[in-house]
């Protein structure tokens, strides 16, 4: 029985460690605000959400598979909560009744008895799951849920559940265990096979053809512990296969409930987020992912969901239209909303490629082979090496991970040295990345760099500028426009510089 609620053809693999770059990604995009709104303080939800979100989808087909399921969830939240509740009951039952399957490589006799008990106890939950499936199979529209309910109804029909119950009881072997065996290498016993004793009613047929075997019998001395252990091992050899079959069944049920809990947890997280945004009254949209070579991003009302969740109010949104250009240079005054804009692009991309709704009125965008960030670090974490070298090292790590079609968001990268040097390195890095098919959003103050890029790749770059009205007021809107030489940061810089002098 497969859950298949995150992928149409496989269960989600929760085993891999999250790659180290996700630490930077979380910090730069302020992902914790998003994750916390989804998890609502539940550690299990948090863990699942982080893993699912950081395992971006690269196929439009899978994204729409998840979108359908999420739409069902938004329509029938109570049923989804009920399903999730069953998985929690399973966990609770195991804990309360001390049920577990012995570990692999334990003695088959103990594997068999543990598995047997867990199976017996699970039968009731399986029956209830079947009842939910019977009731709602017709209502849900998504391929994912329809397949799931159909599977439950097929696999867990009443007749089968009865047979399982009987066999589980019979495997207690109250009358001794019969094994057949042969002589293997060195005359050692081998091929121990668990057998069914011959049916006493049919014995008379056999006795016509065969003379009955003599039976030799041996009783162990009551203090012969070693002998008892050896006999126990022989028994284990005989029970190995039956124990395997029963334990696999018990494990299957266990991992089914566990997998169902994990995969539903992601949608529970989405439901939580949806409820939060509903309270704040901000828009959401199911995005349209494009699987195309050239880069396209077309959206209206794009906002920084992390900022909304932190500020608990609406924030300024932006309309963006990038078509076929893979470099977006963003310049403009400090405190002009550049970083927030950069985040909103990254967050929407990440959410889209998790199969979620995004924080925008409408959103159409190319899929990216990976989402990476390189933000200027405010605090100095690397005293031993220069800040510039720290930046280079971080960039080198990201370059190692980038593939053609990847998306990288740069925020004031290479600003930790003079502008000439910074621009020189930036030109090298950016032109190589763009030529290799990487999509780059670059917030920068380096005029020299922006100017040279304009000369070098005019046709492949879009220039945005954070708006500042003639009176100096910022609108936090991004407008199309090339870099302007004078930096707006001068006043701000003076101010901060003065503060530092006072201290």
């Amino acid at each position, binding site marked *: 029985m497969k859950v298949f609620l995150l992928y149409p053809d496989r269960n989600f693999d929760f085993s891999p460690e999250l790659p180290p770059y996700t630490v930077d990604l979380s910090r730069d995009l302020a992902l914790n605000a998003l994750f916390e709104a989804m998890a609502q303080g539940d550690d299990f939800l948090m863990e699942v959400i982080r893993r699912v979100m950081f395992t971006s989808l690269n196929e439009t087909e899978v994204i729409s598979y998840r979108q359908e399921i999420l739409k069902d969830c938004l329509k029938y939240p109570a049923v989804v909560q009920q399903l999730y509740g069953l998985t929690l009951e399973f966990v609770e039952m195991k804990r309360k009744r001390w049920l577990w399957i012995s570990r692999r490589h334990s003695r088959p006799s103990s594997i068999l008895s543990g598995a047997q008990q867990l199976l017996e106890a699970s039968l009731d939950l399986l029956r209830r799951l079947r009842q939910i499936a019977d009731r709602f199979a017709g209502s849900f529209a998504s391929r994912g849920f329809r397949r799931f309910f159909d599977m439950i109804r097929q696999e867990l029909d009443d007749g089968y559940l009865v047979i399982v119950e009987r066999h589980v009881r019979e495997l207690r072997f109250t009358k001794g265990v019969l094994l057949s065996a042969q002589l293997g290498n060195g005359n050692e*016993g081998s091929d121990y096979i668990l057998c069914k004793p011959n049916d006493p009613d049919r014995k008379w047929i056999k006795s016509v053809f065969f003379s009955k075997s003599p039976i030799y019998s041996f009783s162990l001395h009551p203090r012969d512990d070693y002998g008892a252990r050896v006999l126990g091992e022989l028994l284990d050899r005989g029970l190995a296969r039956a124990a395997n079959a029963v334990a696999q069944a018990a494990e299957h049920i266990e991992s089914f409930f566990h997998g169902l809990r994990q995969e539903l947890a992601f949608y529970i997280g989405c439901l939580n987020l949806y409820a939060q945004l509903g309270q704040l009254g901000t828009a959401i949209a199911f995005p349209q992912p494009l699987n195309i070579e050239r880069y396209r991003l077309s959206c209206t009302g794009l906002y920084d969901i992390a900022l909304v969740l932190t500020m608990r109010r609406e924030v300024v949104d932006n309309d963006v239209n990038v078509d076929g250009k893979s470099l977006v240079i963003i310049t403009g005054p400090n405190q002009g909303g550049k970083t927030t804009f950069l985040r909103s692009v990254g967050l929407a991309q990440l959410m889209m490629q998790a199969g979620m709704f995004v924080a925008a009125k409408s959103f159409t965008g190319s899929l990216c082979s990976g989402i990476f960030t390189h933000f200027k670090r405010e605090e100095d974490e690397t005293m031993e090496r220069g800040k510039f070298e720290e930046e280079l090292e971080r960039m080198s790590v990201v370059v190692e991970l980038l593939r053609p079609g990847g998306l990288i968001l740069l925020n004031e990268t290479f600003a930790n040295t003079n502008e000439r040097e910074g621009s020189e390195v930036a030109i090298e890095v950016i032109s190589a990345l763009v030529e290799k098919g990487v999509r780059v959003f670059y917030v920068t103050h380096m005029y020299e760099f922006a100017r040279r890029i304009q000369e070098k790749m005019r046709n492949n770059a879009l220039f945005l500028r954070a708006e500042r009205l003639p009176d100096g007021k910022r609108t936090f809107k991004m407008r199309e426009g090339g870099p302007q030489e004078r930096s707006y940061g001068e006043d701000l810089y003076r101010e901060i510089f003065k503060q530092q002098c006072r201290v």
Partner: protein
Amino acid sequence: MRNGVEVMAFRSILYARGEVPSSVPNQPEFFSDLYLDQVIEAITGPKREYNLTPFFWAPLKDRDDVYYRQEVMQDLENEVLMARIKSFAERMSDVRRYLATVEKIDFDCYKKGWILEAALVYGEAVISLARDLIDIPLKARGLLEFQKWLTNYIQTQDFKNFVVEAKQVKKALSALKYCIIIESGKFKVKRYEGELDLNIEVEKIFEKFRQRDKEGYLVKFSERAGISHIEAKILEFVAKLYPEPFTALDHFCAHRYPFLNETIESFHREIQFYIAYLDFVSELKRRGLPFCYPQVSTKDKEIYVHDGFDLALANVFRHREKTVVFNDFYLKGPERIIVVTGPNQGGKTTFARMFGQLHYLASLGCPVPGREARLFLCDKILTHFEREEDTLNRRGKLEDDLIRIRDLLLNATSDSIFILNEIFTSTSLEDATFLSKEIMNLLNDLDVIGVWVTFLDELASLNEKTVSMVAMVDPQEPTRRTFKIKRRPADGLAYVLSLAQKYRLTYKQIQERMAK
């Protein structure tokens, strides 16, 4: 084994004239300087039970001995032959293991059971090997002679009878089938009477829940159940249920044990020398590293290597992405000593080690790391590498260096090879220059060949016997070492690292990185 037919003797697959050294050698002194200790450990490590290191510590002095081994090695590069020899070796190892078991067991009926197993596998190992060699085009003198011996051996009547008897006894025993009924604190044994397999039914019921993508709970028990008074009791009951096959086993053991042939046994061990080396080499070959059979000479000092490399480094890189750099060298006419200069970390020491390794491995009769080679079969390899420890003061260290070099020279003949690496580094430039020139003159007087790694440029052009080679950097990117050592006048360049380059972030580097 007692023979009906006279079988002529075969002595050794390692020594052309069958003169196997009687004493066990020590590890040669230069092993750690040349990292040969690591190399030999990597080669012999997987086959520790054969104790192969003494073979690798005993270089050959005679050209014909070297070629005797090269021939065997070349024949064994035939993968079919190698696979067959290996399967013979595996069977022989099983035989040895079974016979070791026999020594340890207390219960007679089991002891005999294992003697029978060993006999069966031994018979099969020997017969298969003889059969397996027939259709292989052998060229090596050693293998051809062994094959001739083996063919005679398996045709002796005694060996033939031995094999037939063992099979008959085994067949009767393995046909037995019986039942055990286990209850708490007791068991019963009876004949098997057609009872049905219960597993099939259980597995069918739970088939639906089987997880193919997961490790199951099937506990794998070792083939060997162990032998205790319980199993002995069971076996006693089985023998009572079916007496005849056990009588036949008693008879076989009384008449046939012990049965191992001495020539087979020593062939089994000695052939491991070749297998171990070729196994090690084949992995490196798959990674594109060349190996070749060098010509060797005890007279001609005109040597060369094309695309040689440091085997120790190649071994270290075996599990990484990195690959070793190839280097060439040659000595022509009066040339004797290669003087290597150039930047630190530029591959100079590696080159020096390679020079020594090539000559040593050639003297073992092994293929050497390189595409093509002619090498000198020396009487000794003498090395002096800068040691890390600096417990001695400056003067003490210089004194120690000089004493060691003097001892080397006392030991040397004109057929020796010298490898000197960064000596006199802690003394004054003037002293170092003076002493080095003096020692170079002594080496030249001896007419030995060798390599000398030094920071003293002037040593490289001292006379017609010295050849200058330099560790190169990339002319386009002066901060990049190429680890190539080439014939060039010494020039002592200095180097700078540019930051972006260090982090591989130039336009070109990123293009390359993203192309992967």
